[in-house]
């Protein structure tokens, strides 16, 4: 799925350098972890890393498309929480109703975002902020302010907890989504239109592209993927979680930005977004191991501070790289 990065590296835009940067940073962190901690490269660590972080990778993928158009989707955390509750309620009726219900809930929320943004011409920041509040509210209302246990009898928990061919099912789902996302963005005309629209909506319109339809689809997709992440959340932890998802949108935005996608839109890469998501998750993983060594003990709050600082360093370095390549 990182094909876009593995072809001979001929930098054509400043974004390419940022994308190279995130890969180097990821490789560096993995090397650091492997050398420093005994069980870092163990199957257990790798598999649980993939199982847990697949949710974040999925919402980062949706966010990448949104940001490439020059927009933003702040509602993904709330939508995932809402979808997890919906999926939990439907799980007694079978794994499929649970899965489909959560995804449809996400799709509906995303579609509403898309309609408000394209039809009513409301700024994405405002529209999706409102959706974030509405989705959390809906989740809490549906769940009566508690977590909602899922059914363990219908196979619903398989989605988040079991393996297939030795890899966690969530990782397969994320991998499939990224492969499709990569093909779509790099090889499908509509994907190229997403990029062109981010380059300038007025121009894209004059070139005959269907700007409104494309924007609508992008927000609907982001909602759908957030819904899918919510299903995995409920399935993995055995409960719909109306209070989860806080800050997920920031993780997703950070992954996309670290992956070299400009917030101004018009450029971006699916592969580098995945690398960005893995990079941020890896920092967390390494901090856990560092705690495990017992020399220092970092609370979750400190970990958050360190992750924030790391993100800042990466972004500043990228900005410098880009300036250099532009000069």
């Amino acid at each position: 799925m990182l094909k876009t990065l593995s072809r001979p590296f001929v930098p054509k835009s400043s974004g390419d350098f940022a994308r190279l940067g995130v890969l180097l940073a990821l490789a560096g962190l993995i090397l650091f972890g492997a050398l420093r901690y005994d069980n870092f490269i163990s199957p257990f660590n790798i598999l649980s890393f993939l199982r847990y972080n697949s949710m974040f990778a999925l919402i980062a993928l949706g966010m990448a498309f949104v940001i490439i158009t020059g927009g933003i989707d702040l509602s993904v955390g709330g939508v995932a929480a809402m979808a997890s509750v919906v999926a939990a309620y439907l799980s007694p009726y079978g794994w499929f109703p649970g899965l489909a219900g959560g995804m449809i809930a996400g799709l509906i929320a995303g579609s509403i975002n898309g309609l408000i943004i394209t039809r009513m011409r409301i700024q994405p920041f405002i529209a999706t902020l409102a959706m974030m509040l509405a989705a959390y509210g809906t989740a809490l209302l549906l769940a009566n302010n508690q977590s909602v246990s899922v059914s363990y009898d219908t196979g619903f928990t398989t989605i988040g907890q079991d393996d297939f061919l030795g890899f966690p099912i969530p990782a397969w789902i994320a991998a499939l989504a990224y492969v499709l996302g990569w093909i779509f963005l790099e090889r499908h005309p509509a994907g190229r239109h997403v990029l062109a629209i981010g380059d300038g909506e007025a121009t894209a319109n004059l070139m005959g592209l269907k700007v409104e339809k494309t924007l609508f689809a992008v927000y609907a997709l982001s909602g759908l993927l957030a819904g899918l992440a919510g299903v995995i959340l409920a399935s993995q932890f055995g409960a719909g979680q109306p209070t989860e998802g806080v800050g997920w949108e920031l993780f997703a935005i950070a992954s996309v930005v670290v992956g070299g996608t400009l917030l101004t839109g018009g450029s971006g890469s699916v592969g580098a977004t995945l690398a960005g998501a893995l990079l941020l998750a890896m920092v967390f993983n390494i901090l856990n191991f560092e705690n495990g060594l017992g020399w220092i003990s970092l609370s979750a709050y400190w970990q958050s501070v360190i992750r924030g600082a790391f993100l800042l360093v990466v972004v500043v370095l990228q900005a410098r790289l880009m300036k250099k390549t532009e000069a």
Partner: protein
Amino acid sequence: MLLSMQDISKAFSGVAALRSASLEIAAGEVMALVGQNGAGKSTLIKILTGAYQRDSGTIRFEDEDVAFATPGASQARGIATIYQEINLAPQRSVAENIYLSREPKTGLGLLDRRAMRDGAAAVLKTFNLDIDVDMPVGHFSAATRQMIAIARAVTQKARLVIMDEPTSSLDEREVGILFETIRTLKNNGVAVLFIGHRLDELYEICDRVTIMRDGQTVAHSAMADMPKMELVRNMLGKELAAFQAIARDSGDDAAKPVRLSVDNAGSGVRVRDVSVTVREGEISGLAGLLGSGRTETARIIFGVDKLEKGSIRIDGKARSYGEPADAIADGIGLVSEDRKIDGIIPDMSIRENMTLALLPKLKKAGIVDRARQQEIVTRYIKALGVKCASPDQPIKELSGGNQQKVLLARWLCTDPRILIIDEPTRGIDIGAKAEILKLLRSLADEGLSVLMISSELEELLAAADRVTVLSDGKSVAVLKRDELSETALLSAMAHQVN
């Protein structure tokens, strides 16, 4: 008739942009569409292509009534447009830009990238353009981007190609190539709607002409039956007295005190040894070919770039500004070359755009004194004849000439001693050009010192009291009013180029 537009009307915020305008084009014909800025040419085209919707009127294309809801719809029907601001996606590759919205696809519905690349390279080759079609369009010069836009239209197999000032960013050789392409299109039965200001080009390439004025079509005829003077008269609606000399004789040259004197200035590689003087109440021209250091000289005077060598004196006192704010405080104004990039703020109102430089002085108890702002804005809109619905209209809705007037007013209301104006009439039609030049003249008569940078010879000949010619970063000649002629200017400019 391939296209017939009749009785088209359109109004924006209550101001009529088109009043029963009409346009007819036959297949295989090159139709010129001319008119001053604000005459309604762009609006008419945007209505045809579906970028705007008409208020009334009929459009028939290939003998069918049409009403395109979007530019995509008109493109699909065979109408391709190359807009004045070249509309391409800068971060996407050349090949993608050529094929966006009509990409060749493989059996799976995915992009056929090889077909795109080969097709793009092939069509560009017919323009003698050999570039890497995988590079983002933003990497190329304006001229190349223009050719790419035209290539895009050509590949659309359009029945009608609309070209909005296609030659404005092309050099002579490229114009030749463009005209070859237009002739090819014509031979294939494709019609071209050619919007332009340069009369010689119109007479060279166009078969017929439609003339617009004040939102109406005032004349159409075969190009051969329309003498130049007649065409210009139709455009302006009055006898053309525009480009008679409006400079005064500078017999009393030495009598006027020198306001600005730049001596042997140097900065970077672009400005190496420039000397210019501007006396009180005169328009001093600064001429030279592209890249001769004209704009850069202005930047040094204005404090944008640092003076490294030589001196700048204002009223005899040595000055070297660290930043434009210091220059402004000292009574210098700069109207820059590119209105879109560093001049106007498109979404802000005329009022706000006009008083931007004045805001610091408009404060009363820390907030903007709205009453005084209003008074100043009203005064200048009237004095300069800015055509607008109200001071609160967004400036982007004005024509180029009116935008330029607002920018001019921005500096005039700061009451400057010296006004530097870079290409004062770029992208403005002949009528508005004369108006702007007359305005500068009357300002000079009131004592303002104007340094006018221009690449248009007629403009310098008509308005400048004296012209300094730059070549390769050096001032190579100073021509006084009585020495000024087209030949004199040209030979001075060519001086060090060969």
